């Protein structure tokens, strides 16, 4: 009992010990913040890949037409939450006088995508829940039609027919505007205003898929909405068109008389499916569904139907390499902070050593009253552990709080220093990952605890070896 009492007393009475606690707190907090940010970054990347490609990706290597039917059949497989067909190509977008951007054209079925989070939150105009219009779409509003008609009549001296109407597109926010240099934020109001003030259509030029001779296609289009995902690549490169329209744009007429194009189907599993064996089973079912679909619905021969890749985008070497590289940088940062932990251990060592030297008499008295050597050592070890525990818990709190509010802290630093540290142009994402990586915290806490206890070890041994007679005698 007296051990605990003494440990606590020393902890309360010796103010110098707060430095030791502060050092442990600092190390633990730094480790938590760094680990959380790095792992959060990897998770953001994974989420982005997952969001854009699905857990399983089915890519026919031969152009085909009936993607919608295939998607429906795949969605019937047990364990699959959704499937989405996309197709795409590169293109040039003429936005207005003197303004041309290189873009990637993505054709997608908004009826399916509107359910997904990015499209819900990221759209500037259609993100507001509208009871009349449950999902976002590409349709042109009456105002746009009027404006286009006025432009068309002025240019061609006749009224546009239905076929002359431009296609509605959704444009990545970075295609339309540049973010503010200092805050790295887009001026959403100005962009919406710019969109509403627009009096002319844009032009897209692109080529047919798979043709070396750049057979050019030019189409009129009108931006109906702007998408901000917070991801550099998507925001600055992508424009979205209706899937059917894109298929007709980039595809060629096939043997069935319909436009056929290359595309891929991203397959999203239900959240309860995590085991590899289940994913493998679903993959096999996708394969079977595909073969049945290709041979019966499209009348392909089996060998033709075998020209398909059913892959797991997460397992591509590129994704693995990037992940591995980020993990390695994390390890280097952790080693650096670990060195600081060594300094913290030194601090605790010094503090305890000092207490042992000052309290030689106390120790002598305790020993003289019959306490064992182990008991004396235990006092100081417990003391070190208490410092470690307090420091770790404070560090955990500080680290978790800083991680949660890292974006606020960063914007404060931006104000203070006059430059922004985290820019989407450098780190791909607009926001710093701010989720605490709880799975990593337990070993960080243990590190803090062990560091402090190790620091206490030598002084504890020293105290245990003191002779009661020596320490009690007058000098």
């Amino acid at each position: 009992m007296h051990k605990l009492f003494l440990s606590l007393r020393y902890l309360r009475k010796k103010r110098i010990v707060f430095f030791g606690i502060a050092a442990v707190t600092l190390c633990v907090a730094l480790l938590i913040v760094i680990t959380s940010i790095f792992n959060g970054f990897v998770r953001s990347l994974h989420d982005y890949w997952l969001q854009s490609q699905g857990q399983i990706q089915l890519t026919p290597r031969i152009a085909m037409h009936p993607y919608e039917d295939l998607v429906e059949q795949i969605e019937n497989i047990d364990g699959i939450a959704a499937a989405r067909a996309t197709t795409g190509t590169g293109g040039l977008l003429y936005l207005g006088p003197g303004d041309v951007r290189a873009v990637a054209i993505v054709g997608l079925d908004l009826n399916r995508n509107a359910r997904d989070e990015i499209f819900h939150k990221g759209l500037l105009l259609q993100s507001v829940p509208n009871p009349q219009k449950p999902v976002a779409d590409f349709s042109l509003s009456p105002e746009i039609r009027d404006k286009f008609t006025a432009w068309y009549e002025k240019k061609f001296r006749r009224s546009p027919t239905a076929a002359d109407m431009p296609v509605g597109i959704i444009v990545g926010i970075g295609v339309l505007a540049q973010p503010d240099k200092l805050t790295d934020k887009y001026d959403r109001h100005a962009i919406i205003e710019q969109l509403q003030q627009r009096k002319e259509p844009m032009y897209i030029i692109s080529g047919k898929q798979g043709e070396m001779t750049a057979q050019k296609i030019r189409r009129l289009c009108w931006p109906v909405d702007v998408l901000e995902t917070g991801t550099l690549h998507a925001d600055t490169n992508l424009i979205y068109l209706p899937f059917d329209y894109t298929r007709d744009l980039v595809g060629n007429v096939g043997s069935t008389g319909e436009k056929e194009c290359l595309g891929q189907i991203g397959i999203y599993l239900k959240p309860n499916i995590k085991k590899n064996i289940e994913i493998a089973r679903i993959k096999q079912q996708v394969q079977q569904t595909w073969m049945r679909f290709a041979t019966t619905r499209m009348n392909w021969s089996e060998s033709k139907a075998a020209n398909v890749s059913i892959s797991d985008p997460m397992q591509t070497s590129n994704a693995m390499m990037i992940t591995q590289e980020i993990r390695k940088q994390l390890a280097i940062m952790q080693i650096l902070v670990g060195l600081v932990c060594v300094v913290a251990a030194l601090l605790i060592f010094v503090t305890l050593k000092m207490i042992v030297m000052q309290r030689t008499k106390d120790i002598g008295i305790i020993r003289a009253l019959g306490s064992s050597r182990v008991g004396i050592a235990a006092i100081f070890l417990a003391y070190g552990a208490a410092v470690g525990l307090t420091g770790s818990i404070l560090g955990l709190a500080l680290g978790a709080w800083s991680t949660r509010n890292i974006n606020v802290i960063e914007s404060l630093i931006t104000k203070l220093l006059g430059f922004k540290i985290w820019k989407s142009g450098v780190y791909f994402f607009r926001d710093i990952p701010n989720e605490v990586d709880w799975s990593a915290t337990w070993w960080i806490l243990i590190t803090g605890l062990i560091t402090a206890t190790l620091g206490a070890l030598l002084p504890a041994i020293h105290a245990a070896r003191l002779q009661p007679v020596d320490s009690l005698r007058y000098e």
Partner: protein
Amino acid sequence: MFKLLLIWRYFVRKRVALIAVLAVTLLVMMVLVVLSVMSGLIENTRSRNHNWTGDIVLTRHSLVGFPYYDEFIDRLYQSDIIAQATPIIKTYGLLESDWTTPLIGVRLDEFMHVTGFAECLYKTTDENKTFTVPDITDPGPDTPSLTPEQRKRGFMRGGFLRSSSSDLMDSIWQSSQLRYYLPLPITVFAINSRGLLTGSQAGENQTFWFVNYFRTDLLDVDDTILVDFDELQKLSWMDGQDGQPPRASQIRIKLKDNIDLETAQTQIAQFWREFAQQKEKQDHAELLTDLTVQTWKEYRRDYIGPMENEKTLMIIIFSMIGSVAVFVIFAIFYMIVTEKIKDLGIIKSLGASKWALAQVFLGYGALVGMVGSLLGTALGCAIVLNANKIEGWLNQEFGFRLWPPDIYAIDKIPDVVNFSEAAIIALVAVLASLAGALLPARRAAKLVVVDALRIE
């Protein structure tokens, strides 16, 4: 005299002081290594950007470009600060049918004088430093022969892989497919002086042939395709085939040696204002009003800035960490003062002043700081200077690749120590040690003799 003696004795006899030295050594070493590597990376980034950009850039952001560029270049040559100036066209192209990339049109000879582009080429013999598609020594049956017009349309492609071995690159190079007959159809928008679509209105198309690779190690540049200035100008209708004055997007300038960058920038901006004023009455003078004259540092700020910011951030983090070392020294000295309280009382009773006692501990702190910084600097230098050997050893012994060359833009870890930076780090460490010694010194100075000497 007794002060020095005491400092020395404490330093030698008190093993606990070694811990303080150790703490200082560790931190100095760590800061030195991290900052040296980061400074090396920044220096490398800057030089790569400078190498690609030239000294001064006149840019008009709009793809429309600006007219009368040749006249202005002539005007520039009349001043005595310009070594070389060259016009550039920047636009976007649709290649084959499904990928898009920035296109840059350059007058290669001039461009290689203005910038360090010649060093970025994969094949560096004179015959490879041109956009002319070379003759085929051994034409196969399927190889089409090019007309002289077509042979002018060579292109250079950015970004050959660093990780690929030179053998692999050579074999790619030699495969005649890639070497001679990789026709690349390029489509661009033709835009007239008012920024409107012109030409066929559906993009202009032309086939180019591969002539060489280049690598600048700048992510955004290594994505691009370089073609001849005149060919790109013709293709994008900027050459005046519609009866309007020919246009360019940029002028890049190399200054003569030992001309100050900022002074030259102001001077050239002044030239430009005068030039735009002279042209006020001519066609399309409105295109001359919104040009920017930038130094290479400003022009590439978006690419250089983030690294410099990261370094500042590192310094902030390390100064936080450095405070821990101050505490270590503080605790140790406090302990020594407490322990030696009687000695100090005796010294004081023998007539030493308050200031003298404080000096003992301040001097002690300085000594600890100096020894720690010296050791730390030495260790840090040893690590930085041998960084690549250490990395190679790690790779050989454990197969651990700390610095994969295809991820980092440079294939060697920067191994140069900036000695002025090292000196500053050491100085800060000594100051921090002094700060740690300050309170204990004050306590020693305020000692009341009677209290100190009394037997407890």
